[in-house]
């Protein structure tokens, strides 16, 4: 980052050299990945790995991200009535709840399939997730009302 403070686009020799080194290291490390993959994963499992890699990208790019976009547009439409601070609070709440849902999901699913012994999967994950969403909802409602009241008082 030697050119970071000069204000000019970072295109000096130092930066060029650093880029070349990083890309070369990256190619070598990726190559190691390919070698350990070939050495460690049986050929008959390769289609499964490829399917998961492609499936993850498709799931994110074609399902998850468009849903997030849709949610954002709907929220913004409601935002006119709510104040932008209120919209932001709701957005933060949805992201936190969404992240907890992602974390809780494998617990819920694995529990359905049955835990190996009583010391694994020790919590009722579905119940905890519902409680977390309820808590997030209450806190968000309080924050949104507080923001609205403050705005109303300012006139």
């Amino acid at each position, binding site marked *: 980052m030697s050119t970071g403070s000069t204000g000019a686009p970072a295109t000096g020799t130092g930066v060029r050299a650093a880029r070349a080194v990083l*890309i070369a290291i990256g190619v070598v490390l990726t190559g190691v990945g390919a070698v350990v993959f070939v050495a460690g994963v049986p050929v008959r499992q390769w289609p499964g790995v490829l399917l998961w890699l492609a499936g*993850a990208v498709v799931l994110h790019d074609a399902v998850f*991200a468009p849903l997030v*976009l849709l949610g954002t547009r709907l929220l913004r439409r409601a935002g006119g009535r709510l104040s932008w601070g209120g919209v932001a609070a709701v957005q933060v709440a949805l992201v936190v709840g969404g992240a907890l849902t992602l974390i809780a999901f*494998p617990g819920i*699913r694995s529990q359905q399939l049955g835990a*190996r*012994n009583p*010391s694994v999967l*020790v919590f009722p994950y579905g119940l905890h997730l519902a409680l977390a969403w309820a808590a997030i909802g209450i806190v968000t409602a309080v924050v949104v009302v507080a923001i609205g009241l403050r705005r109303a008082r300012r006139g």
Partner: protein
Amino acid sequence: MLVLVRSALASPARHPRTAVVIGRLLGLGFLVCFGTGLFSHYLQNPLPGMAFPTRPASLYRVTQGVHVVVGTALIPLLLAKLWTVYPLLFRWPPVRSVGGLLERAAIALLVAAALVELATGVANTYQWYPWPFRFRETHFALAWAIVGTLAIHIGVKLPVIARWWRRSRSIAPDGALLPVAEGEGDLRPEPAASGLTGLLQRRIDRAAVPPAAVSRRAVLAATGAATVAVVALTAGETLPALAPVNAFAPRRLRYGPQGLPVNRTAAEGGVQRTALDPAWRLELRGPERTAALSLADLRAMPQTEAGLPIACVEGWSTQARWRGVRVRDLADLVGARDRELLVRSFARGAYSATVLQREFAEDPLTLVALELNGEVLHVDHGYPARLISPARPGVLQTKWLRSLEVR
């Protein structure tokens, strides 16, 4: 069409500065996971000539705890990073040069590998394995692919990263992000289109957009809060300070028989009958002599107490008090001191024979444990005798011992 998609995706927070702020945390996190992951991998599969530190005794507890906690934190960070750069997916033309094609290929591999690595990693800690491939080998190979393509990605983007690294050069006094000039990054405002596309674009743009400062702060606050939440509510399975708020982790601190979680039970190992057989003997095979010790013989030997954690590759860990016979004292009986030992269990399946490297065999805290937390070992913890040693993964702390052998 793509113009409209990009217009619809426009947000003041989708900006190179956001990508840098989240990206540097993400990059650091992946490096930490890579380092701790390599350590764990080579502890279990040492290359010839490798030796490992046996102190601090909680070393593996810390490294593997960090591996799983940071890996969990990377989930919201990765999704936030992908959200920031998502409009670039719809760039037109998709590639402009051979270099550009290779760059996009590297990014595609980086994104795919990162998503699969985190998703399978988290599911694995919950012992849910819905994939049709070997976890450990795939996790290991994808880790190399991630750090490799990450280095390529950072190399390609270095000028943009440098431009937006500092806050003072990125944010206006009112809290909004500075406009992106030519050559300063890809996430630039969409130019106005003409004709029907332009008409539709103006319709999309008419929808109210939050003030830039609010948008930027909302994205950072949401990412930060989500990261803190997933860590705070799961890390208690290894961090005592967070144990009271543990709500989503697969394990609880000190929860299980004798205050310790169990991975493989005696029933799973198929050892219920053998473990309780009074004719059980621990066989010692040295270079010249062999010995067979009964439980009474082992109890008659000098006993050592050790406070050592069980630290699982899955990220949970619990400290425990152990009492038993030093492995090096047993090695002395058959002239096997200062040697690598093969540790055999009478459980079936994976890890029924593991290698105890010389430095661990010699350590005065490495025990053939007979007691746990003041009681005779529970059968699910390896009765009649199990191995316990400092700074090693739980899968190598062999239960239901059959023999210690010089290889």
